[in-house]
């Protein structure tokens, strides 16, 4: 009876520890997800893709110096929170820009308002209209008083009501979009995989099919394993030292660019792809190789007709790992491609990936955790979609081959 209880005790203890630690890990992972979604969900908005990152400031002024007041009432019902100046016929409301900061936006403008059409002070003879997507920065009056948007929309409209002529309206276009960074990230994934997969698979084939157990191959293998543990920032230095000068010499690039970034990422990916592919080549049954050779196929034919097709699911698994690595990489990319956010993406110009975009947001003063979390959610979605696509392809390959047995 004593033995039995002791065993129960130990079993229970070990089980308890297992459950405890597994729940700690699940809770931690869950907490990270909850945090990211909690912080970032509010800023998820299609405008993040629709609007560019760069914003421009426009200085506008009424067309006529001696403006007549509108003194008109809105012909539609205004929402709550809209402050309307009947003298000028405009209503403003508070809003949030793409970065999550409070702004003042145009809510309504009366057709007869003197502000319905403005002249652009920066460019001669250029008229423009106020749009709801412009963020109102400040309005200056001819008596030299200025009302600033950041003091609140209510105060701004009150000051507007009490002024007699408007000297200047400063607006900025909506900016802070992340479309450019998304495109850069997709480019990086495509280019890096395009470079790293053929090279990595080729190296794995050499190691597993040709070199096998030679001293040289074993040395190479342990070297590759060491490379897997090298911090990526060192590969970033390699990018700066080799790939940036190389691309500058060969293309019209002038500094870090998408190609040098992809090359650097390819080097980071190589050890992973070589190792995963070699593992998957190893598990291709030796029976298949024997059968092929006994049929009078050459070694190369055996490799490419039997071994590689059977290792494809494993090679696709290395692609999955690779995508994760590309999307998650930031340290090396800061060096190899730069952290400058761009809207127009060209292969030979600086731009930045989503991960580095987060880095830029977090190094701003103050750090923008909300937008960073939003970008994190977008990264998660991109990785999820790519994973599903590859799983789908993998299943397609496995179907038609391995039904039933093995």
């Amino acid at each position, binding site marked *: 009876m004593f033995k039995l209880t002791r065993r129960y005790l130990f079993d229970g203890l070990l089980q308890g520890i297992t459950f405890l630690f597994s729940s700690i890990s699940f809770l931690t992972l869950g907490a990270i997800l909850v945090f990211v979604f909690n912080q970032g969900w509010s800023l998820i908005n299609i405008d993040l893709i629709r609007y560019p990152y760069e914003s421009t400031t426009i200085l506008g002024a009424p067309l006529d110096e001696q403006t007549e007041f509108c003194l008109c009432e809105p012909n539609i019902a205004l929402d709550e929170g809209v402050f309307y100046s009947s003298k000028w016929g405009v209503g403003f409301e508070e809003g949030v820009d793409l970065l999550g900061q409070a702004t003042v936006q145009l809510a309504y403008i009366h057709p007869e308002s003197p502000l319905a059409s403005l002249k652009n002070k920066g460019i001669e003879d250029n008229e423009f209209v106020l749009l709801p997507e412009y963020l109102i920065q400040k309005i200056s009056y001819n008596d030299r008083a200025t009302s600033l948007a950041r003091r609140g929309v209510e105060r701004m409209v009150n000051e507007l009501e009490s002024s007699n002529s408007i000297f200047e309206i400063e607006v900025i276009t909506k900016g802070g979009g992340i479309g450019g960074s998304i495109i850069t990230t997709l480019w990086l994934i495509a280019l890096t995989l395009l470079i790293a997969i053929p090279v990595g698979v080729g190296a794995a084939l050499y190691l597993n099919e040709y070199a*096998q*157990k030679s001293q040289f191959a074993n040395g190479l293998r342990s070297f590759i394993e060491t490379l897997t543990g090298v911090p990526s920032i060192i590969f970033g230095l390699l990018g700066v030292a080799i790939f940036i000068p190389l691309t500058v010499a060969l293309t019209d690039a002038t500094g870090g660019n998408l190609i040098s970034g992809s090359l650097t990422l390819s080097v980071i990916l190589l050890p992973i792809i070589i190792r995963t592919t070699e593992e998957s080549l190893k598990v291709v*049954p030796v*029976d*298949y*190789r*024997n*059968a*092929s*050779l*006994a*049929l*009078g*196929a*050459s070694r190369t*034919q055996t490799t490419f*007709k*039997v071994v590689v*097709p*059977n290792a494809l699911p494993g090679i696709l698994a290395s692609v999955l790992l690779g995508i994760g690595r590309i999307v998650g990489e930031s340290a090396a990319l800061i060096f190899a491609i730069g952290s400058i956010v761009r809207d127009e993406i060209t292969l030979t110009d600086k731009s930045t990936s989503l991960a580095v975009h987060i880095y830029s947001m977090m190094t701003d003063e103050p750090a923008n955790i909300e937008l960073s979390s939003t970008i994190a959610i977008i990264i998660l979605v991109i990785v999820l979609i790519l994973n599903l696509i590859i799983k789908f392809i993998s299943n397609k390959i496995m179907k*038609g*081959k*391995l*039904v*039933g*047995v*093995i």
Partner: protein
Amino acid sequence: MKKIFDTQNLNLFYGKNQALKNINLTIYEKSVTALIGPSGCGKSTFLRTLNRMNDLIPNVTIQGGVWFNNISVYDKKTDVIDIRKRIGMVFQKPNPFPMSIYDNVAYGPRCQRSYSKKELDALVKESLVKSALYEEVKDRLQRPALELSGGQQQRLCIARALAMNPEVLLMDEPTSALDPIATAKIEELIVELKKNYTIVIVTHSMQQAARISDQTAFFLLGDLIEVEETRTFFSTPKDPRSESYITGRFG
């Protein structure tokens, strides 16, 4: 009968271990030669020297001569691919490729040159008919080969080897992974195939050797103890060791 294989003083070493000792064996055309003996006696090793499948194992040294139709198999000038084209092989465990039945049979020919679809269709059909599998699979040639039962898979492997139109079929315990009914089918097939092909079969079952072979070679610890016409071998073995093996005193 015409000689097809001839080995003279064949010695084979795995590293320092001698696996075959001075083997002198002649194999005749269009007959079945059975290689028997207890596990580890070198019979499979011998079979694999005939089409140079031992090349794939590191640290193998071979001394002596193997002649196939008066070609020295281990001569440096001999093209190993040509040898393997002319000597088909069937393995212990059915090992069809994870592709369709059709592609399995067409694999060997496709490796040699490009065929028109018509030629290939005819070749695949002919090979499957020869291996007595055609009737069972004719409606599902594009289905995965791994859907077939073990016995069918083994006959598919035979069809795959036959598609190369070899002169010889080497079989390494082709029925050891199969149930008795599938085994009987394969044995029937071997007897049928012997009309056109030379067959060398390694088997663990003395009954099988007695049923299907014309000549039996008994191996023990790397030595070739006795080669004899099968009926004579099993009724009046010359060597006392053969006799004790046949009567089940060891093995």
